[in-house]
C-alpha cells in the first residue's frame, strides 16, 4: 500500500494561494475601512466626534500602507473590485453618518467586529499552514486585529447602541462586509 503524499510543489502552491488570498482581501478591507471613515468625516468632521474618527482613520491608513507594500513584495494580485470598495465604503460611511453620530459609531462597531473575526481566522489559517514561515505576517495581523478591536470598543463607548434600528443596521452591515470579504478573496 503506497501512501499518497502531497508533493512539495503542490504544498508550495497552496501556501502561495493562501498568502495571496489573505493579503488581497486585507488590502481591500483596509481600503474599505479607510473610505468608510472618510465618508463619516465628510459628514461629521466638524462635530466633537470628528477627531476620534480622524484618529481611527489614520490608523487604518497605516494598515493600508502596510498591505500596499506587501502586495508588491509578495507579488500578490490586488482585487479587481478596489474601485467598487472605494465608492461603496465612502457611501456607507457617509450614509451611516447622516443617521447621526450614533449611526456612524454603529457602523464602526459592525464593521470592526467582522474584521476582527476575519483577522482571527486568517491568523489561524497561517498558523495551521506554517507558523515559522509566516511569523512576521502573523505578528502584523495580530497587531492590526488588536487595533480593530480597539476601534470596535471606541465605537461602543460612543453610544453606538443608541443608533436608530441598531440591530437591523448592524446585521445588514455585517452581512455586507462578509459578502465583500468573500468576493475580494476571489475576484
Amino acid at each position: 500500500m503506497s501512501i499518497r503524499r502531497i508533493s512539495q510543489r503542490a504544498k508550495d502552491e497552496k501556501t502561495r494561494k493562501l498568502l495571496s488570498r489573505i493579503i488581497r482581501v486585507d488590502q481591500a478591507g483596509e481600503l474599505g475601512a479607510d473610505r468608510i471613515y472618510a465618508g463619516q468625516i465628510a459628514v461629521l468632521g466638524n462635530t466633537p466626534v470628528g477627531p476620534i474618527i480622524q484618529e481611527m482613520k489614520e490608523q487604518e491608513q497605516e494598515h493600508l500602507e502596510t498591505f500596499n507594500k506587501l502586495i508588491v513584495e509578495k507579488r500578490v494580485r490586488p482585487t479587481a473590485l478596489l474601485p467598487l470598495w472605494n465608492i461603496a465604503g465612502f457611501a456607507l460611511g457617509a450614509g451611516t453618518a447622516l443617521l447621526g453620530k450614533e449611526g456612524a459609531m454603529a457602523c464602526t462597531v459592525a464593521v470592526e467586529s467582522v474584521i476582527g473575526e476575519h483577522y482571527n481566522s486568517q491568523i489561524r489559517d497561517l498558523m495551521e499552514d506554517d507558523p515559522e514561515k509566516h511569523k512576521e505576517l502573523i505578528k502584523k495581523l495580530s497587531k492590526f486585529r488588536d487595533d480593530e478591536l480597539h476601534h470596535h470598543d471606541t465605537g461602543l463607548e460612543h453610544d453606538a447602541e443608541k443608533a436608530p434600528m441598531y440591530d437591523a443596521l448592524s446585521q445588514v452591515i455585517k452581512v455586507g462586509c462578509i459578502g465583500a470579504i468573500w468576493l475580494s478573496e476571489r475576484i
Partner: protein
Amino acid sequence: MSTSTGDRNPPQDTSSGPGGSASSQTSNGGYNTQRTGQGAQYSDELDNSEDLVSEVEEEEMPEETEEEYQTKQAVLKASLPFVHQYGWTKKAIVAGAESLGMPSMVHGMFPRGGAELVFYFYEESNKELESFLKQKVTELKEKDEKIKTGPFIHDAIETRLRMIIPYIDKWPQAMAIQTLPQNAVQSWTNLSRVVDDIWFYAGDKSNDFNWYTKRGSLAAVYKSTEIYLIQDRSEDYTDTWNFLENRLEDVVSAGHLARNLQETNTVLSEGAKGFCVMTRNLLGMNNR
C-alpha cells in the same frame, strides 16, 4: 471508505486523469484503511496532508505525487521533437513516450491530449523567460543602470516570442487549441503569467487598479504580435518586431491620452463652475 475523506476525493480524482485516478483510488483505498485502521504511526503525516487538502474548497488540487509529475514532464519533453510531424496531438505524446521506451498507453496520463503538450511548451517557455528577465535585471543592477521600461518590455516580448519560432510551422494549431473552451482558463493563466513576469521584472510597483490596466494592455500587445508573427514572412521576422514597437508606442500614447483627457476634464469642469458662479453674480443671486 470513510465518508469524511470521501467528500474531498472527487475534485482531486477528476484533475489527475484516468491513469492518475486509477492509482489514486488504490492508494486512497490504502490510505483510508490506514486512517481508520491501525496506521497510527502514519496518521499524523496524513492528518497534515488531509488538512492541507481541506483548505482548498473550490479550486481543484493537483493530487499528483512528485514522481507522477516528473514522469509526465519527461514524456512531454521527449514529445516536443515530434510536433513537426504529428502536430500538437496525442500521437506526438505517444511517439515521445515510445522514444523513452514507455508503453504507448502512457498517453492516458494526459486526458487533455495535445493541449497538455501545448501547455507544457508554454510553461517551459515562461520559465525560460523568467530566468532571462532575472538575469537582465541582475546585469543592469551590476552596471548600476536604471531599467528603461520601454526597451526592457520590448526585449522581453521579443525574447518570449522568439521561443515560438522553432515550432512556428505548427503554432497556429497550438493557438487554436488554446482557444477551445476547455483550455481557455489554462491559456489565460499562462498568458497572465507572461505579462505579470514582464511587468514585475520591469519594476512595476502598482498596487491598485493600474495593476490590471498595465497587464491588460501588455497582454493585448503580446497577443496581437503573436498573431502577426505566425504570418510574417520577412527576414528574421523584422516586420514583427516593428509591429511590436508600434503597438508598444500605441499603449504609451494611450496612457498620455488618458492623462490629457483627465486634465482636460478638470479644466472643463473648472470652467463650467466659473461660468455658473458668473451667471449667479449677474443675476444677483450671490447673496443667498
